[in-house]
């Protein structure tokens, strides 16, 4: 995700709008995987200065809701369970501020 590439400061990156755990695409979708890799190789070849982030043209082929559901683990990770009450409180206070 370009959010982290920008904040961490990576030398060159291809930003791909795919769900977590699917950086190069869907299982067995060889052509999709190869298109992403070829784009990444083009970035490697063409970038001339540090911090270059190119946004991929690839689109995830299933619906947003389906993809969000599919990439997540069956059970929330321990840290998400641990922090969930704090997150919910943050979201509540944000909503109050904006209302």
């Amino acid at each position, binding site marked *: *995700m*370009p*959010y*982290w590439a*920008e*904040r*961490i*400061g*990576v*030398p060159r990156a291809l*930003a*791909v*709008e*795919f*769900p*977590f*755990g*699917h*950086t*190069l*695409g*869907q*299982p*067995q979708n*060889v052509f999709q*995987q*190869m298109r992403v*890799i070829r784009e*990444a*190789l083009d970035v*490697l*070849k063409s970038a001339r*200065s*540090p*911090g270059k982030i190119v*946004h*991929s*043209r690839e689109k*995830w082929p299933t619906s*947003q809701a389906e*993809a*969000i559901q*599919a*990439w*997540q*683990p*069956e059970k929330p*990770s*321990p*840290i*998400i*369970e*641990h*922090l*969930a009450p704090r*997150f*919910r409180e*943050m*979201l509540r206070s944000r909503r109050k501020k904006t209302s």
Partner: protein
Amino acid sequence: MTVDSFKFLPRLIATFYQMMDREPVHPIPWSPLPCDLEECAFGLITSAGLFQQRHSPPFDLERERQEPTWGDPSYREIPVNIPQDQVGVSHLHLNPQDMLLDINIQLPIRRFQELQQEGRIGRLAKTAYSFMGYQGFPPDTTQWESTFGPQVAQALKADGVDCVLLTPA
């Protein structure tokens, strides 16, 4: 097209990331491409928590369950000829199902072998590497920076690798 980093994140997890906001390291490291792609040796590194079943242990998920603010900083070697049925995934923040079907969605070993065969790249290094991306909360990458990162970099250099594709999960 501008990629939306948060498109596939539930609101709770988006909030989690925004809590970890940080400033970029300056100067950003830079190494020019040392050769034409057709001559370059490539290495692959992912943070998907992959390991080779029956050859290496999974990442330490038990400790993470007991201690949710900690994440295993070690890494696993993945031979690029690994059969798909030996691919293991130990990562509590992802659904492993699709990686268990096809490792190439995170660690594109077959695709790079194909690129080598077609002459697009010089070669693929014989060993790829996997870390497990969750490094605690707040994230602590000290051991990646001081120990495990340099070990992997040294191994890749010893194998004559020119370029590395990093695929965060």
